[in-house]
């Protein structure tokens, strides 16, 4: 085979099982691709020796006809997942040289099933960002370029390393996390598939915490089938995370071909926001037509509290972040800057260790949780959150999944939005509602912008109904037949 990196996760799995290729060959092809794509800055720490060692172990198992569901398949890991003995920093200066003595549950599950780790992927610092520009290791460059110019574009965020690496074929698939859209928006910006499962479907143990009531792990992959395979391995109950849910993990891949005949697809009217680009609106309309043609029933639904989702999110998420990030004190791990006394040491360490977006969110969070303001901000936001969840519950009385755009625009240029936090926050307008309500959501590449950039459509499912969600996503993917790829300009 000429270029092994062209295989999808499912394709590579089948080729390995049939002994047409070896894991060492496949892994070596990825190591070469990673080496040729350093300019994209997708990996913050390649783990070449470990990858080859894991690949050799997989080949030995495969030779004996053994091995798990992901045996010998090379993956990238977002730097938010603790990996035993391998530096994990959440792309923050404050976690410089942190080497976890333990493995996150999600990555443990992947290694249990035989996957190979290629390295740690870049992300926004502590996953706070929508463009991967807040990383201490610098921005990730989107492999996609506009037709009209060579401007360097963002790959979305916070899982920008994951989305860029999957789109540029620097790994078969990647782990990612999503607090307000951090899996789905980067997937939309790079022509990849990203699924955020139901809150509690994947264990959060060993994932660097941002906003614990919203954070969920999920995969970014090349197609819907690969997403089903990855999620099946990542998901599951874990007694180390009391919010993970003890229910069986279905065979997600098995449901994909079942079609959408009779499925009721809700179209939330409040998602037609002011100022949405015409081509996003047109793509959404095409998506509706595709699903209708595939036999789905289209239903108009209302989610009246949608307008308040973003402000709610920007109270809840910083509040939880400010308390989660209190642990970075210069005592137990990470950076320490000496001071005249212990308080001075804390303050200098945290001033030097946190970037400006993280600092901004800690300050907002500290403010809204402080005495006299708690009821007005945090409690109020949690009440609005109840209303947002109620909206969805009401909508699901008349439909089975919802269809919306993933993001309000295509990928933008590096530096274009970083000066204005509010315009950056608006990227998450269609995705945050899903986190606030704890629901599963998936982004599927559905078309190109007039400037040749990928655009995504989002499907939102019922709690723990990833099967229906993936089934609908598979039908949407088939209808969209998205086959465009970025030119490999970085290899020149």
């Amino acid at each position: 085979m000429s270029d092994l990196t062209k295989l999808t996760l499912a394709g590579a799995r089948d080729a390995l099982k049939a002994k047409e290729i070896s894991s060492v060959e496949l892994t070596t092809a990825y190591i070469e691709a990673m080496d040729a794509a350093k300019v994209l800055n997708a990996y913050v720490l390649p783990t070449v020796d470990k990858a080859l060692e894991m690949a050799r172990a997989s080949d030995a198992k495969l030779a004996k006809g053994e091995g798990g569901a992901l045996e010998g398949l090379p993956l990238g890991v977002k730097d938010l997942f603790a990996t035993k003995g391998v530096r994990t920093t959440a792309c923050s200066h404050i976690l410089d040289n942190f080497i976890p003595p333990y493995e996150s549950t999600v990555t443990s599950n992947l290694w249990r099933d035989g996957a190979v780790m290629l390295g740690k992927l870049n992300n926004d610092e502590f996953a706070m960002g929508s463009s991967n520009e807040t990383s201490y290791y610098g921005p990730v460059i989107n492999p996609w370029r506009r037709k009209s110019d060579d401007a360097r574009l963002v790959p979305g965020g916070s899982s920008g390393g994951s989305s860029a690496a999957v789109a540029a074929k620097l790994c078969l698939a990647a782990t990612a996390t999503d607090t307000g859209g951090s899996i789905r928006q980067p997937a939309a910006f790079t022509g990849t598939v990203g699924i955020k499962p139901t809150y509690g479907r994947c264990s959060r143990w060993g994932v660097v915490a941002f906003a614990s009531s919203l954070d969920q792990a999920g995969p970014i992959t090349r197609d819907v089938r690969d997403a089903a395979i990855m999620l099946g391995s990542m998901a599951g109950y874990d007694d180390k995370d009391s919010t993970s849910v003890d229910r069986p993990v279905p065979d997600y891949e098995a449901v994909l071909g079942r079609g959408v005949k009779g499925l009721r697809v809700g179209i939330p009217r409040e998602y037609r926001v002011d100022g949405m680009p015409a081509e996003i609106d047109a793509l959404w309309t095409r998506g509706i037509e595709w699903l209708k043609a595939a036999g789905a029933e289209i239903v108009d639904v209302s989610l009246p509290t949608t307008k308040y989702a973003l402000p709610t999110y920007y109270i809840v998420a910083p509040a939880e972040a400010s308390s989660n990030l209190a642990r970075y004190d210069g005592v137990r791990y990470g950076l320490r800057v000496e001071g005249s006394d212990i308080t001075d040491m804390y303050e200098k360490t945290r001033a030097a260790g946190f970037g400006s977006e993280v600092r901004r969110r800690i300050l907002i969070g500290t403010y809204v949780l402080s005495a006299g303001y708690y009821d007005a901000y945090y409690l109020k936001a949690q009440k609005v959150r109840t209303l947002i969840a109620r909206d969805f519950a009401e909508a699901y009385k008349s439909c089975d999944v919802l269809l919306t755009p993933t993001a309000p625009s295509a990928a933008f240029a590096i530096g274009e939005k970083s000066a204005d936090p509010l315009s950056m926050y608006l990227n998450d307008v269609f995705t945050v509602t899903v986190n606030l309500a704890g629901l599963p959501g998936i982004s599927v590449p559905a078309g190109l912008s007039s400037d040749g950039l990928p655009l995504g459509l989002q499907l939102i499912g019922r709690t723990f109904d990833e099967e229906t969600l993936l089934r609908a996503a598979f039908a949407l993917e088939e209808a969209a037949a998205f086959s465009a790829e970025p030119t490999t300009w970085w290899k020149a």
Partner: protein
Amino acid sequence: MFRPNPYMGQVCLADLRLVCLSFQNQNKGTLMSVDQDTVRRIARLARIAVRDDELPALAGELNSILDWVEQLGEVDTNDVEPMTSAVAVTMKMREDVITSGNHQKDVTANAPQSEDGFYVVPRVVE
């Protein structure tokens, strides 16, 4: 009163509550714009050193975000319970037994400064 958020796995830095109480007396729960003194106090609560020349820009940023979230005031939340769990599930109970331990070396392995299995911090008590 400062109330810990129900989701957090980690409480705020030790003396946050005391600083909060003194803060409360000056601002009786009315939403108002953040001035530079307030930014300095919040930064102190968050244990992040902020230079005086950074205060005006930070106050501006925080105000624009707080002005924007103020729109939640339009939503009628009378008789609405605050969300306490993203997904309706019953918390599982486990046996109250020791399942792990004796990891002193692992626990202190990443400490910037440690000695004999203890963390070393600047002198706290004179």
